[in-house]
């Protein structure tokens, strides 16, 4: 165990030094006051002892036993009242700090997480990332909240009571330290076990959560294939395993409190015995004996709490580790600092990329002059989407270069780059928000074209009229369900509204019927006349007007040219045209 419990969280505690300082100061004062109480008790009892022995009135502070008792009792009550008031401040400050740190850690985590490269999210499950923002952060808060009060109070109480006990009887005081070594050793041993046990429990919990998440996301498939029973069985296994891991943890943890209690009790017993003998021998007053015992109980409490603190500490450190591991991941490089206005020229220079050890793109070299159109065709898995994803740096070239306006893409400020790009992905993600917000998404209200115009271009306006709330209709998880085509057109409006210098349509109109697609393309041509367009499609009608058409196969450029050039070449593209013609010729019969 580290000496400084707070070290792993130091960075987040830093801003609250003043509050922590004030809280700790109050804590120290309240502690000092509360430690006076056994002493007052001792004096009160000693006064009674004196009375029993028939002492003279002069021996009493106030002149009589009743007076003395009332005085000590009143003092206890008064100090307690003061203590209460100070404790309110102490607890308030320290708890608030733990809550603020919780907020800060969560915020730092989320702010960092959202900036990580996309590839990071492909390796992680959403449920797992969520657990870090919720459960893990809460574990840290719980520890800090308790640790401030308990560990610091504990340590201080321990030292102060020991000093006060030494004043009463130093030999007994030293004896009371007897269980310490055993306590420290068990704490260490149990701490180790609990930490690893807890980690296993947490991992299993994450598994379970991820399973539920996946099950819910895939509910349609679950229902369509009547997988309910199989899913329940899978879940039952995870659930059972979770209980088993908890059982292993409980086995160790359940030992801890009773054991510390036993050790503590045994040492108290020795003191009680020896102390009792001293009182019999007249070497110690009964009052001192009672006070000594009261201190001993107070000293025992932090020792007992040690277990809980260790437990929570282990959890908090494990949780902080999980959060830190995300914060330590390099965010995506932001590119150059100097703002750039892009024209939209895109050039791949022998760019290669591999995924999971498989080569996805090999040695791609294409130049797309600003304002021109590049169409990408090719069969399933040939790397079309991968190629398009280079441009907004959703992935980064492993070898070779990608230049925008002649500048290596890594040197362009990421924000400027993405602002200049309108990307419509194959699969549309809509947020649980109004259609308006979904279209605006991050762009200012004051963009060149309004939401209305954007939905008009995307041919969404007619659909909107059929919704009673129009643009204010809430969609996504919490709202109405849109058809695939409506979703794609919403995504298109989202891209168009930004009037991007580079528009990328990644098979973005697949769920839109041909007629609507034609309408959309016609309107797009109007606004995209001076903008670079990169379009992935399967329909020849969509791609044939492009300035350049590139045919990908197994991650390589196999053909590149205009519609006419490629037809003349009589390769894959020409073959594609023939096949698509075939069906229409059949039609003409």
């Amino acid at each position, binding site marked *: 165990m580290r000496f400084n419990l707070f070290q792993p969280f130091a960075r987040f505690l830093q801003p609250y030094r003043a509050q922590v300082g004030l809280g700790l100061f109050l804590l120290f004062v309240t502690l000092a006051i509360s430690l006076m*109480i056994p002493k007052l008790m001792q004096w009160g*009892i000693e*006064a*009674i002892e004196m009375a*029993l022995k028939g002492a003279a009135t002069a021996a009493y502070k106030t002149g009589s036993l*009743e007076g003395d008792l009332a005085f000590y*009792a009143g003092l*206890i009550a008064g100090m*307690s*009242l003061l203590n209460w008031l100070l*404790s309110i401040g102490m*607890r308030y400050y320290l708890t608030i700090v733990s*809550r603020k740190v919780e907020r800060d850690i969560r915020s730092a985590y*989320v702010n960092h997480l959202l900036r990580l490269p*996309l590839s990071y*999210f492909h390796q992680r499950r959403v449920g797992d990332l*969520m657990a870090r923002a*919720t459960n893990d952060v809460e574990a840290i808060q719980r520890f800090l909240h308790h640790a401030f009060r308990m560990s610091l109070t504990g340590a201080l109480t321990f030292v102060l009571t020991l000093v006060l006990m030494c004043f009463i009887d130093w030999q007994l005081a030293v004896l009371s330290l007897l269980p310490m070594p055993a306590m420290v050793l068990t704490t260490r041993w149990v701490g180790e076990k609990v930490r690893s046990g807890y980690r296993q429990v947490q991992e299993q919990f994450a598994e379970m959560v991820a399973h539920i998440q996946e099950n*819910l996301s895939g509910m*349609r*498939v679950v229902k*369509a*294939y009547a997988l309910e029973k199989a*899913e329940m069985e899978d*879940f039952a296994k995870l659930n059972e395993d*979770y209980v088993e891991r908890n059982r292993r943890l409980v086995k160790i943890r359940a*030992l801890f409190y*009773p054991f510390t209690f*036993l050790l503590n*009790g045994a040492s108290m*017993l020795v003191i*009680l015995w020896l102390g*009792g003998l001293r009182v*019999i021998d007249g070497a110690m007053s009964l009052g001192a004996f009672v006070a000594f015992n009261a201190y001993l109980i107070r000293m025992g409490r932090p020792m007992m709490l040690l277990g809980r603190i260790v437990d929570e500490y282990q959890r908090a450190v494990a949780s902080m580790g999980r959060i830190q591991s995300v914060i330590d991941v390099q965010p995506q490089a932001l590119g150059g600092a100097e703002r750039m206005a892009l024209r939209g020229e895109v050039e791949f220079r022998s760019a290669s990329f591999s995924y999971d*050890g498989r080569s996805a793109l090999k040695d791609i070299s294409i130049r797309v002059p600003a304002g021109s159109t590049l169409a990408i065709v090719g*069969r399933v898995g040939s790397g079309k989407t991968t190629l398009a994803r280079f441009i*907004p740096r959703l992935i980064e070239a492993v070898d070779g270069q990608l230049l925008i306006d002649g500048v290596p893409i890594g040197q362009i400020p990421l924000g400027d780059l*993405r*602002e200049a790009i309108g990307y419509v*992905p*194959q699969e549309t*993600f809509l*947020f649980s928000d109004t259609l308006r917000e979904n279209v605006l*998404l991050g762009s200012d209200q004051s963009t060149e074209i309004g939401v209305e115009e954007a939905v008009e271009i995307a041919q969404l306006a007619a659909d909107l009229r059929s919704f009673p709330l129009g643009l204010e209709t809430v969609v*996504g*998880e919490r709202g109405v*369900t849109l*058809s*695939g*085509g409506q979703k794609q057109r919403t995504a298109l409006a989202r891209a168009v509204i930004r009037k991007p210098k580079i528009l990328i349509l990644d098979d973005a109109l*697949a769920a839109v019927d*041909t007629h*609507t697609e034609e309408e959309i393309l016609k309107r797009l041509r109007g606004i995209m006349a001076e903008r670079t367009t990169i379009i992935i499609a399967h*329909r*020849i*009608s969509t791609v*044939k007007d492009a300035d350049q058409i590139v045919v990908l196969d197994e991650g390589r450029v196999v053909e590149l040219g205009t519609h006419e050039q490629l037809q003349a070449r009589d390769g894959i593209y020409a073959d594609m045209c023939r096949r*698509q013609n075939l069906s*229409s010729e059949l039609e*003409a019969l």
Partner: protein
Amino acid sequence: MEEALETKGVDPKLLVRLLGYLRPYAGWVAFTFVLVLVSSAARQGGPFLTKIAIDDYVLMGDREGLGWIIGVFLGLLVVQFVVGYAQSWTTSMVGQWAMRDVRAQIFSCMQKLPLRFFDRTPIGRLMARNTSDVDALNELFTDGVVSMCSDMLTILTILAYIFYMDVELGALTCAVLPLAAAVTFWLQKKTFQAYRIARTRFDSFSASLQESLSGIEVVQLFGFERRAAERFDRGNDSYLEARVQSTLYHSIYFPFMELAGSSLLALVLWYGGGQVLGGDIQWGVLVAMLQYVPRFFMPIRDIAERYNTLQIAMASSERIFELVDSAPEPVGDGYAQSHLQGAIEFDGVFFAYSGEDWVLRDVSFRVEPGQSVAIVGATGAGKSTIINLVCRFYDIQRGTIRVDGVDIRQWDVQALRRRVGIVQQDVFLFSGDVERNIALGDGDMTRAQVEQAAHSVNADRFINKLPDGYGHQVGERGASFSAGQRQLISFARALASSPDILVLDEATASVDTETEMWIQEAVEKLMQSRTSIVIAHRLSTIRNADKILVMHHGEIREEGRHDELLAQRGIYHRLHQLQYEDGGVDGTSAQLA
């Protein structure tokens, strides 16, 4: 969006229902209570033994007797250790078992809910039921119930010891109880409301984070990170605010209980001291009292804290029960056949996803066994809805749907769905390998069958190229596959289940021409032997169909074979004309939507 807030406190009915989860472990619970009883009697025996030690031995100067009582004390400690361990173990495990049952129940209830439910309930909210709400119950079961009883027992045991020693001191102690109770009551009222607000805010920001993470690609592409983070921070801040509120109350309350304890201590010293002098009580009684008083307030404080846990659990259990009690999807009247003939009939079907917002209006058609039907129409015309209804994903409001002449409501839902192979618009892949995604829960399916299915749709071409082939892990939602690849897997998946009815929903939309031809080939083969309903885009599919349904604004406007429809010169003809002109002039793919 905050869920409705109301203060309910502890509802006895809810509590009884919650405790019902402990019923299977009643034996263990009873055993735990015995342990609790023994351990609190043993634990609180300490000061009493101190009293005996002081009065009977120390003050009498009996050294031997002191040794003897110390021995008894030691015995008591050992009992406490053993009982304490056993109690801690049983309490935790009973809690774990109960929680396992709660989780299993929630999970299986969710499996039985209708799709309509999932349409309007965000996954984030359901996840909160499964995580934070279950967690709250967890604390109740593993810590709350038993500890609360143990605390109450502790109070009673202490009172019993005190009354046994001296009735007047007992009465004095009892006198402080109402004050402590009143303050505790005040606190719980104040904090509970604050807690509920905090909880709702927590749920709300975690749901929004969940969404940002699910849509991270869009978030990053559109430079939405900063705003998403800001939105999150606002939620996070407002959560903090709610927490600060309740912190204030707690900060006043908990030290107050210490004040109450110290005040009682002063009272005992003042009053008891006089008694000792008068010989009314023994020395040891005073000493024991001074030890009991601080112990007395700790359990009261803990009960207050646990009452919070209980309330938190109440609020959570309310939400969990609401989920668990949601009307499950109807399972049908149990009619089942191992194979379907494949006759489907829609008879005057009206359907709306909500209210009277008809998506289908008076739809009637028949599909004979083995026939293939193509549905065409513009997006939003209601094509997908028909497919949803064939699988009984939704119940219709008016009319009847018959499968093999039997009302769909009489069919055992699962038996029906097992015989229908569906390829949906959005392909969902489960984590695990490719094989699992094709076999989908069918444990009897052999590798050869899986490979056969993949081969039929030509999906094997790319699967074989994967590093681990069929053992390749797809990752969450199949992120490493292209849309086309995912569709091929989804195809193989549908074929692998060798369905009697095949349902294809715009499934070929994002596959390139070559792949599409392969699929087309496979589909044609398949259609020969079974009933199929296809939401078609490709003219070839449509031409080969035995029947074409032309959907327009939720109605079937035209029905018939390709040439018949063309001859009608209606909507289909117009749609076709659009395609034809394109196709004729510049060789466009002939597609119809």
